[in-house]
Structures are given as C-alpha cells and as structure tokens.
C-alpha cells in the first residue's frame, strides 16, 4: 500500500497539486470577508481533473494492475492520495486562516474561520470522494461525469451550509457563537466532522472496490 502511494506521488501526481495549489488556495484565506469553503473547492475544480487526466495518459491503471498488488489496494491508494492532498489543503487553510484572524480581527460575513468551517470542509471533501470515486471506478478511466456529479453535490452542500449559518438563527448561534459552551460544541462538531470524513471515505473505498473488481481491464 505504501509502495502504491509512493507510485502515485512519484509518477502520477505532480508536486504542483500537492504543494503549489494547496498553498495558493490557502492564500485565498487572506481575502477579507469571503466564502472560505470555496478555497477548498479548487482541489476538485483544478487538481482532480488534471490528476485523472495524467493517470489516463500514463495508462496508470493498466500498468499497476500487472504488478503484484491487489485490486483493492489500487483503489485505496487512489482514495488515500486524494485524502492526503485534501488534508494538505486543510492545513494550508488553517495556517492562512490564522493569519487572516490576526490581520483583520473581524468576523466574516459568512462562516467564520473557526472549527466549524474546517469541519464542514472535511465533510465536503468526504462527500466529494463518496460521489466521485464510485463513479470513476465504474470504468477506472472516464472521470468527467463522476467529477461533475461530485462537484454539484459538494457545491450544493457548501451553499446550504453557508446559507444556514447566516439565515437560520439556531445554527448561526451554535456555529458562530463565542460563549464557552458554544465553543465546546464547535470543537466537538469538528471532531465529529473528522469521524464523518473517515466514515465517508471507508464507504467510498468499499463501493469503489466493488465496482473496480467487477470491471475488465
């Protein structure tokens, strides 16, 4: 599995998508008063189609399948490589979010830069993976339709989250409140988000495995 991940990052995924894009997207947190969930979306707007395209151009799946590896490990390595990049996006978001808070010292008009924002970002990535990979592994080649579907669902999720955070008072108080009980709730919510992210990815791997096992290469 480690070897497959190594192969992903050495042969398929350019460092541009591992460092430069996440760094640039993180830097978007320096924009004052913005929809910060969008900063995380550039991963699937830019990086995912490019990575998939490179895999296809490299005949990566065909090459990997003839090596001594399980088909299920091929699926896991693809999903894990995305998870790693998503986490890098999140980490840069945290770093630049921290700088934003120090610079502007004001609240954001949409979701604040705080635990709930990063929790929702994780959930959005989990939803994206769940919508994308099972569709992609129906063929292990065509990524267009699964990508469009996953983008639509992820953007809808983010839109609903941002709107609810402003217009539904209870949610606004819970996710944006400054009292210690609300802060505790927000931290617990972030932990729950991590668990949801993990669960969504476990389901993603299971469904993708089933689909990948059933196709001829």
């Amino acid at each position, binding site marked *: 599995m480690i070897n497959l991940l190594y192969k992903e990052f050495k042969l398929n995924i350019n460092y541009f998508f591992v460092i430069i894009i996440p760094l640039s997207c993180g830097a978007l947190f320096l924009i004052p008063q913005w929809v910060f969930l969008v900063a995380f979306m550039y991963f699937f707007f830019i990086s995912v189609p490019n990575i998939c395209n490179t895999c296809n151009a*490299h005949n990566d799946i065909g090459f990997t399948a003839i090596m001594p590896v399980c088909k299920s490990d091929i699926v896991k390595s693809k999903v894990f490589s995305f998870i790693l990049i998503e986490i890098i996006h999140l980490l840069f978001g945290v770093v630049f979010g921290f700088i934003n808070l120090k610079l502007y010292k004001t609240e954001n008009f949409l979701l604040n830069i705080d635990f709930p924002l990063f929790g929702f970002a994780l959930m959005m990535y989990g939803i994206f993976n769940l919508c994308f990979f099972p569709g992609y592994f129906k063929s292990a080649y065509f990524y267009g339709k699964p990508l469009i579907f996953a983008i639509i669902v992820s953007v809808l999720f983010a839109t609903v989250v941002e709107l609810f955070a402003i217009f539904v008072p209870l949610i606004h108080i819970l996710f944006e409140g400054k009292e210690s009980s609300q802060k505790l709730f927000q931290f617990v919510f972030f932990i729950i988000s991590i668990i949801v992210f993990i669960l969504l990815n476990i389901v993603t791997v299971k469904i993708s495995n089933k689909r990948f096992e059933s196709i*001829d290469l």
Partner: protein
Amino acid sequence: MNILKVENLCKSYKDFQLDNVSFTLPEGYIMGFIGSNGAGKTTTLKGILNLIHTENGTVEILGKDFKANEIALKQDVAFMVGENNYYRKKKIGLIAEVVSRFYMNWDQSYYEKLLKRFKLDPEKKIQELSQGMKVKFSLALALSHKAKLILLDEPTSGLDPVARDDLLEIFQELIEDGKKSILFSTHITNDLEKCADYITFISNGRIIESTEKDIFLENYRIISGSAGILDDIKSNVVSYKTHSLGFSALIENEKISKIKPFNGSLNVKNANLDDIMIYFSKKDQGGSND
C-alpha cells in the same frame, strides 16, 4: 514441468467469444501465440493474468492456481503490452525505482547491467525511446525482478527488421538457463519461424492447435490445382481460394490420403505459418474467396 497451464478459459463479449482456450507451456521454451487481429490473443493473455473476468477455466503458473495465489505469483510473472506507452513523460530510471519497490527479488546491480547491455540511458524518458528500446526496457524490468514467465503481447509489431532480429536473439538468450519461458503473441509469423519452440494458434476465439512448431507445420499442406476438381475435394480442405489459374487450399496432412485420386493433378507443398493463419481466417469468414 509446465510453467503455464491454461485450461478451458472462456470469456464472452457481445460479438466475440473466447471458447475453452487450453494450452501448456513447458519451462525453458519460447511459445509463439499466433492468430489474426481480433482472434483473441490479447484477451487470452489478459485472462491468464486475471485482468478480465473469465466465465470458466483455470490458469496454473509454476504449478499453482493463479487466481488463488495471484499476488505471490505475479512476483514471478512479467507482462508487456505492445504499445508500451506507460508514463511516457517519466524517466526510465524513476519508473524502475518505483517498480523495484513492488518486487521482493529485485536485483538492482543486474538491472544496471541490463541497462548497459541494452544501451538504455536511465535519464531518458519513455517517449524518447524507440519502440524496440521500450520493449528492451520492459525486458530489463522483467529480468531484474527475476520473472520466470514473460508474457509479451505483440512485442515486435512496429519494429524494423533489424530491431526485431535483435529482440528475437535476446529472447533466445533469455531462455538459455532453462528456467524462464516466454509466451509472446504476434501476427508477424517470421519472428516465430526464427525463435519459437512451440506454437499456439488461435482463430476466432478457439485454439486450433498448440504443439511444437515443427509438428504444427508438418500438420498442414497447401494444395493447388485446376478449378475443375475443386468441388470434389472441397469438403476435405480447411478453406480455399480461387483464382484465374484454378484454386489453392489448406489441407490437414492426414486428409491428403482422402484426395489421393486427384494427386496427379494437384501440386502439394509445405504450408508456412502465414498460410495456416490466412486459410483459417478465411474459414472463419465463410470458407472461400471466389
């Protein structure tokens, strides 16, 4: 000992069927897997490696069931597809470094020796290699992880005669130790006349014959004669072609005796691999070319 044993491999597509494909490849030999385009060569090779879901049949490599021991057996198997266009923009040194991590028996010093022998520069990218060099690189990878069974799908297609000859010599050297076997599919039958010990002939998804090359060639004859006697012998030939001078046909050697009465007016000559392929493909298309 058989290094590869394929039994009753079946796979159905909408317009094509792999029909009970069976053959064996002994240790230390080269087997040519021949058939026209679309005959089922690549499908069979993919079926052997479990890359497609076969409906029936078993594959044994080194005496072990392949499906049950896939990961372990893949350590001893190398598979190369003709176009060989993997990671075109990457340097071969990097690809080898990544691939080496997957094989327990990887021998780095042997790999470096092979690169020198094949005159491959590790700094070159795949796209900068000629077709022949790409095949050599694949062989270098296969040999460096000590593959015992090397499956090559159309390795010589697209190569000039010099590169092909060079490659065939390498194939022969590889099996000299008697421990490795090569199964390579091709429709360039000249290659097999130079280096194959065994021939497996597939036509329209069915194995027509799998035997030693000399026996295979001995089993068929080309007959030709005037058009007037064609109707009398039609039922005994594999297929035939008619032309302005009469006809020519492929016949199994054992059926020659059945057309004895006409021997005086027939020319009989040995068939080569091309002849056998051509006449069998005619048979699949409907029997004759009038």
